[in-house]
């Protein structure tokens, strides 16, 4: 039965870890703007594409 003492303690510690993670995410203003990041996330692809186009253009020019 003594195992349950340790297990309960361990589970609480684990949960407190998540609580701290949550508090950290709030404090670092991750919930301040809940719209822009969702759009920004999609941009990375377009930047790569654009770079490709850029290089294409350059090669065209050199030709």
């Amino acid at each position: 039965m003594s195992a349950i003492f340790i297990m309960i303690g361990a589970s609480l510690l684990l949960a407190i870890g998540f609580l701290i993670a949550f508090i950290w995410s709030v404090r670092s203003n991750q919930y301040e703007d809940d719209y822009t990041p969702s759009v920004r996330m999609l941009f990375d692809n377009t930047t790569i594409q654009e770079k490709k186009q850029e290089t294409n253009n350059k090669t065209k020019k050199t030709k």
Partner: protein
Amino acid sequence: MKVKEKSEVNTICYHCGEDVVERHYHIEDKEFCCKGCQTVYEIINKSDLCSYYDLEHSPGINQKQEVRKGKFDFLDDAQIIKKLTHFQDNTHQHVIFYLPQMHCASCIWILEHLDKIDSGIIKSQVNFVKKEVTVIYNYHETSLKKVAEALTIIGYEPHISLNDVSSSKVKKYDTTTIVKIGIAGFCFGNIMMLSFPEYFSLAKSDDIGLKTWFSYLNLALSLPVFFYSASEFFISGYKGLRQKFLNIDAPIALAVLITFGRSVYEILSGTGAGYLDSMSGIVFFMLIGRYFQNRTYQTISFDRDFKSYFPLGVSVINADGTEKQISVSELKVGDRIKIHNDEIVPADAILFLGKATIDYSFVTGESLPVEKSIGEIVYAGGKQTSGAIELEVVKEVSQSYLTQLWNNEAFKENKKEVKVSFIHRISRYFTYALFSVAITAAIYWSVNDPSKIWGAVTAVLIVACPCALLLSATFTNGNMIRILNKYKLYVKNASVIEHMSEIDTIAFDKTGTITEQGKSEITFKGMELSSYQSQLIRTLANQSNHPLSKSVVSFLPFTKMLNVKNYKEFKGFGTSATINEHFLKMGSSEFVLGKDSHQLASGSRVYMSIDEEFVGYFIVKNAYREGLENIVSSLGNQFDLKILSGDNSSEEGYLKNIFGNKSKMLFEQKPEDKLNFIKRLQNNNKRVLMIGDGLNDAGALKQSDVGIAISDDTNNFSPACDAVLSGKNFTLLKELINYCRRQKTIIFASFVLSILYNFVGLFFAVQGDLEPVIAAILMPISSISIVLLTTGLSSFYEIKLKRLRPDKSHY
């Protein structure tokens, strides 16, 4: 009305998406509506930022109105830079710009790639909800002015107002509430889990050690809830008591305190497990309710005054004729200032040079711009509409005619806050009832079994905590605010809903409120005009800067201008000229016909004659909002209607038709008059709803029980008010008010429900033995059922609004 020469194929501008009328501007196969759009495209193309056009179709901002060069010169001023930037080290400065034009994913994209346009910019980050961009730049390589200009060039002119420098503190996003909720929720869940053995009497049988271990863990977990999460209830309850006012937080704080005290006692003495699960649960639910209620629409500011309307910089002309940009707050009496086209006069000043046509529609409510001649005084807040002028300041910004309104006492105290909400009144009765039950139980047990007094009294106070009442109020309000937002009525806080439900009188402003801003309705009466005649008239009208002539120009179909000879302007009467050997006259009937015709009908008239032969007249009228007649007649059945207009009474006849003879109409009202009129109504025990839009309504909006600002574009300036309503949804006004009236019904309904739960709880409590398991079941069930009932009812009452909704799009 407008006859556009439509090209066979309807082409739209590649940049901004507007129709291309003149096909002058194109690059390769891309067409543009104006030079400005083409320039922006060239810059974007040069900086390899053309993904801008791939993300959204024609995302640009129309560039027909050019921004004057040197407009941002004041941003070179070290003082202003210091005030605007919020961080600075040896190389970098951080600045936040407000960009009201931001509207789509493309905007975010280009604004986060500013470094390609100006290499001195290191990073730019957008907050789309607030329409702000944070720019970090190296100030050795670029400057604040250059950053602002770079933004302007690509079509995002930053909005910089006097307000940005006067309120130095940056509004911080409040994280403590969320942290408090997180901690309370976490502890609630864990305490509940650790209490399971207690609920089912599992631990009783064998292991005392396990039981105490669980109890002490619970106690440890409840400490952050009691000392941190619940702290605001204690603080607010204590503050209320110190002012001898029993607010709703006081009994809640008492209940939390007693629950905690009794639980600690039971655990330490080993007599029981306490009610820590119920306590943390209550705190958790109440905090969620508060958060839900206070989560107002963050992009709309409700406390703006003239400072956010006024520009930050102004050009001052030195004695030697050179121009210098200074901050408006530094303007002194005697300074000579230069105001360019479309700029706002920041201080009362005398016209010195140039031709002034001042648009006061926002400040006084006059619908047509006013012409001023040299030597006349121009009041602050007017917008110059005809080229550059020079003025001499006669009063400082804070002392001007317009800004003095803000010295009125209505702006000093916040009397609406003082008014006690009916929820507080109910909670007070509830508390009295509760105490009498507790005392009755105490008396009963002191006679029968004195050992049970303590248990019964604390149990009564634990079970019958008024948190159900607080929960009903916060969740109802929160959901109603959310639903009202959907219909583009953005309320400042929850108390507005309650005030709105008590309204019996509605006062309307005219210009911009029941008329549509910047729109006029023109009709022509007289003989049929040939296209040649209309060309003649348009040419003459185009010579004058008078607002009426401008309306006529925009009304007539586009034609080429003809040769004008002998052009003459007679101030207050009209103009005349010889065009292509025809003598044209245009102006008042006295000027054109030689006799004064009685103007009974509404609107201003412009008479025309060609070669001394009368051809007809134009009627220029305010354009009223669509559906005005319907909404007014249905509101009239329910409320007293008044009109408070700063404009002249030329539309009185028409308005009488709509509003009927019963409604009082006041014209040529100064801002103070409006405020005082509202005050008089209130002294006669009227609850007044004021609907306005301009700075001239600011006093009345503040004084009224509920002040609603109408805004056709929610990014635009709106004066201090309790709520902002989109002009498109003006016709929903009556239903929105009626919806707010449901608030009390909903709260009462859920209150009745919670009373039922309280009876069940009290039944156990007065007997002196409240099992923790019963408290633990009652508490979440009652909380959750109340949340469901309130949100369900408030959504149910939305049905009527849903049917009438003219504008289906979300914000």
